[in-house]
């Protein structure tokens, strides 16, 4: 890993009697998309807010591009861009005005091209309350990146958006990553995290329960791999072939479906069975456990421990 652009060490934050974050540590490399996942109240937003300089940690060390967010806010705001969970704009402001205003405070020229890029060309003079939720979210993103920040914090950036808008935002995020921007992505959307994030940390009750690439995290779970197979004569549908490492099997439509703890052995055995029956193979699908499956597994385990 390159030298970290974000460093979090033994970070703790309490609100009265509630421990929101309980001694977490992680690093984020430059140009990385880092996902923060967790159920409501896990500590994601508190972590983001402390990194953004909105709140002061009770203990621990936070650094963003070498800057202490608590004590050097002026330096911090030039290197970070933030898209808040709620868009937080005055109702009557237009995208053009918002772009001029925010860029003026950052001391950079307005980036009206970003509004066009994000599909707001026809809405540049519409008031904020006249924009759809997706347009408001896109405006917030345009404002967050207008001063070319080195680190971009996105809090639920695609929540409530339609598929097309979501795809556009993901494309922009990839482009920013390609330009070297580090992105911290807090989301409830496991599919989004799995698709976009280089690494993710799953937070629960203020602690990191696992951290790594989506593949590493899913691989460490006890989840079974789903194997779906369709043949021309349906030879696998008729009888329950005893197959190695299969914990459960079923049929759906014209597919035989197996849940395996050892993909290699099960797939080999399946292909042998199909060949032996001289039944032409039409379709074979292998679906590894998703990040969502692993997340639910961790959540369940945590709840179980708590009982």
């Amino acid at each position: 890993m390159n030298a970290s652009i974000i460093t979090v060490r033994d970070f703790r934050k309490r609100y009265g009697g509630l421990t929101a974050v309980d001694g977490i540590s992680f690093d984020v490399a430059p140009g990385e998309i880092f996902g923060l996942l967790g159920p409501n109240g896990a500590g994601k937003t508190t972590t983001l807010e402390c990194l953004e300089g909105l709140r002061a940690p009770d203990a621990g060390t936070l650094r963003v591009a070498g800057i202490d967010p608590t004590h050097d806010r002026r330096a911090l705001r030039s290197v970070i861009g933030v898209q808040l969970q709620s868009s937080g704009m005055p109702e009557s402001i237009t995208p053009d005005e918002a772009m001029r205003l925010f860029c003026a405070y950052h001391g950079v020229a307005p980036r009206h091209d970003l509004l066009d890029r994000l599909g707001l060309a026809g809405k540049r003079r519409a008031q904020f309350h006249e924009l759809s939720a997706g347009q408001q979210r896109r405006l917030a993103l345009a404002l967050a990146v207008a001063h070319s920040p080195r680190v971009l914090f996105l809090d639920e950036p695609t929540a409530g958006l339609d598929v097309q808008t979501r795809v556009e935002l993901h494309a922009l995020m990839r482009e920013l990553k390609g330009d070297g921007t580090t992105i911290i992505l807090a989301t409830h959307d496991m599919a989004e995290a799995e698709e976009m994030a280089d690494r993710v940390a799953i937070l629960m009750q203020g602690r990191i329960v696992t951290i790594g690439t989506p593949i590493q995290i899913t691989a460490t779970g006890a989840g079974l791999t789903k194997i779906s197979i369709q043949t021309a004569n349906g030879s696998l549908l008729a009888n329950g072939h005893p197959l190695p490492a299969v914990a459960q099997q079923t049929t759906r439509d014209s597919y035989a479906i197996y849940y395996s703890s050892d993909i290699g052995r099960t797939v080999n055995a399946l292909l042998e069975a199909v060949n032996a029956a001289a039944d032409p193979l039409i379709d074979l699908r292998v679906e590894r456990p998703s990040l969502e499956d692993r997340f639910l597994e961790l959540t369940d385990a945590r709840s179980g421990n708590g009982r």
Partner: protein
Amino acid sequence: MTAFATHFGYEFRTGIRNRGLLLLNYLFPLAFYLMLGFVMTAINPLFRDALLPAMVIFAIYTAAILGLPDPLVQAREAGIFRSYHINGVPRANLLLIPALTTALHLVIVAVIIAVTAPLLFDAPTPVNWLNFVLVFAATLLACAGLGVLIGVVSPNSRSTILFSQLLFLPSMLIGGLMLPYSMLPPIARMAAQLLPSTHAMNAFKGLAMGQTADFSPWGSLLVLLSGGLLAFALATLLFRWDSHHSQRRLPAAAALLALAPYVIGLLVFGR
């Protein structure tokens, strides 16, 4: 263009674009002025003497006391201040710029009233225009300070209306706009001295309109100026970027200290 100027330009346009603010900045005070001008001067010709200062004070009250606070409350509650905070907008700008743009709207309204009142209602013009501007500015400072302070301490829109009306209604009733201070019973005079409108009307009469002031007009001017400055200072101290997890440097009740100059004024100049 500087960030301050860009922000000022946006806020000024909002004062016209936003229907609620347009109503409070222009439509309500001007409509009330025309109505009172036609009705009151017909009923009581002596009201002509008070028409110009009274209507200017009324306009300042509607824009500053009724119009200024709620957008501040809404901006804090909707996370707009958080968004500004992250992007480096200073807290002073968030209090000062709305007050200054409101002042600019009020200058326009005051000019309209000052130009039309003599023509439409035969109202007397100020004998000292410089002092008129001075008292206008002091009244504006006092009311804008209180408006901003209400916006900072008020927890929600409902409370904002209550706090604003606590200041607005007594000012309309006993603040010298409709009923002369000299006609009030002694106890009401004491209460009236706690209101910016009483001091504004007194200063306008004594310093700008060539009329006899009810008590020290320079004292009233001093009360207005110090009250305005104190209210802005308290608003800055009590300001919060958001209402979740953030502590004030002083309890909200400290806002009542803004009344101190009026209480001192009552003790020193009241009679």
